């Protein structure tokens, strides 16, 4: 029970919009750290996030965050911040007013709300624009003010739906650094993003969803290993890549070899990673090839996405 009280839990959750499936029989237990939701458009990512925060109600099953159901708004939303994809705001408010209104509903004093609003604006680097009306903000600034509102009250769980949309490369890097920092502080971050390469760098685990079904979940490396029917690709940096490739090809689990463009390494694709590493050790011990580094080359969210979901659509 204690373990469950530190997790985001979906218990056999389904959601139907009339006869249209949103998500089906989802069971998850999400620990702290960064969890990335990956799937094509309409796969159920936003539905999952909206279910998590009570914006939509499950057709069946139960959801809790640290043991609290979303219906217990008083306590639930002290712990949870959600930056949605909806690009709309209450009219005629400045960034400051928007944050203050939101913070004051937490029951804090005006002084405290003022302090936290200022802190949140600084964290998303929007300090100077706080006094301007949100209608005048660019898309990236609106994304930032939504993020500021979601983090201003120091929640323990941050749910971010496409938080990098509309941000320029610099702002994306800053946001990712902020997410990493929040994760290091022990926060739960649940992020959906189609910018897989960037999110991949900070993700601790991935949830792949398509057609309303969870197709894989867990640490990225673990999920990749579980995709056994797809050969894994490994980059080996060494002094004699051709020799290494020929030795490896003598083993029948090796499916493909490709020289690195700089000629100082080789990409090898294998259907049996354990046997592959055993053989590599043998070659290293023999001393014929001087191996510098060995690193998985397709052990990332993007590759897993391609393998499991493939051409169903661009992830979003």
């Amino acid at each position, binding site marked *: 029970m204690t373990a469950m009280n530190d997790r985001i839990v979906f218990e056999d959750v389904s959601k139907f919009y009339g006869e249209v499936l949103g998500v089906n029989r989802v069971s998850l237990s999400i620990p702290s750290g960064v969890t990335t939701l990956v799937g094509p458009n309409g796969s159920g990512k936003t539905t999952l996030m909206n279910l998590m925060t009570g914006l939509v109600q499950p057709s069946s099953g139960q959801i809790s965050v640290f043991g609290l159901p979303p219906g217990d708004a008083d*306590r639930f939303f002290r712990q949870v911040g959600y930056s949605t994809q909806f690009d*709309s705001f*209450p009219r005629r408010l400045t960034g400051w007013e928007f944050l203050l209104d*939101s913070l004051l*509903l937490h029951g804090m004093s005006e002084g405290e709300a003022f302090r936290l609003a200022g802190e949140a604006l600084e964290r998303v680097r929007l300090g100077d624009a706080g006094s301007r009306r949100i209608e005048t903000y660019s898309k990236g600034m609106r994304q930032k003010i939504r993020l500021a509102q979601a983090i201003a009250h120091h929640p323990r769980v941050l749910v971010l739906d496409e938080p990098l949309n509309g941000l320029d490369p610099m702002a994306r890097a800053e946001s990712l650094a902020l997410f990493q920092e929040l994760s290091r502080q022990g926060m739960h971050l649940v992020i959906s993003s189609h910018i897989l390469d960037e999110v991949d760098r900070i993700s601790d685990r991935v949830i792949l969803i398509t057609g309303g079904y969870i197709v894989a979940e867990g640490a990225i490396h673990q999920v990749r290993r579980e995709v056994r029917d797809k050969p894994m690709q490994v980059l080996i940096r060494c002094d004699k890549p051709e020799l290494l490739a020929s030795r490896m090809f003598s083993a029948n689990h090796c499916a493909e070899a490709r020289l690195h463009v700089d000629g100082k390494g080789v990409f090898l694709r294998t259907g049996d990673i354990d046997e592959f590493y055993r053989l590599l050790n043998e070659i290293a011990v023999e001393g014929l090839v001087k191996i510098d580094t060995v690193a998985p080359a397709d052990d990332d969210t993007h590759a897993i996405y391609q393998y499991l979901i493939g051409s169903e659509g661009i992830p979003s």
Partner: protein
Amino acid sequence: MNTEAVSARVKSILVQPWGFWWLQMRRLVRIELRRNLFSRKAAWIYFLAFIPTAVILIHVLHDTHPASGLSLDTNVLAGIVQFYYIRLGVFFGCLGIFSRLVRGEMIERSLHFYLLSPVRREILLLAKFAAGSISALLLFGSAVIAAFAFLYAAYGTAGLDYVFHGPGLGQLGAYLLIVTLGCLGYGAVFLLLSMMFRNPMPAAMLVMGWEAINPVLPSLLQKISVASYLRHLMPITVPGEGVFALLTVETEPVAGWVACLGLLTLIVIVLAYSCFRIRRLEIRYTTE
């Protein structure tokens, strides 16, 4: 239910964070008042509220006012409250104010910010209702007071005498009570309709039709009406003739306190059902 169970129930009610909810309610009302009263969209509600006041002001400035005209003008003011404010002004004003509170925010796609804050949805609904009621009361109440003041000020001493030493203040009190109950009653109904229907206007027209046919309905059904209760609180009854007959509600006579209690009961029932509905409300802006 035994004594222990009752005691536990009472304790569970007492330990609720009432102070926190009250604070949230006040802050929500402040936010909502700002939106209701100081937006361009509120302009036509100002117009609805103050158009009779403007007409009376023109009448005061333009016409002569012999003391003999006081009785006629008193009846005119009663007619304005009975035919205009109850049946049209407050009706459409509340439709504008209260249907925007939830549905308007769904259309503007900003309701989710409230639903993602640590505010119980019942508190949110009641705060929105309170803010809508205060907005409507400020507009229609001040319009009635201004109309009353203009009308009797034009008669000088005779007017002052009627107000302060005659039935004037009592009539003003009754008009304000009628406007208050009208705003609360129609407000509760339109707040609920705006949660039930994407476009509450057809339903509002049905309500208006229901109010119009109320006199021919059985006694029990007559009680499901705002205007019929308000009719019993009028200090002066102006008979409806011609087109005004369509705006007149003639129901079984009841005492004033019964009318107030009946209307308040209706409001509580409608609000309780609205609280039930808002707990199940989902944010699906794409269907708006």
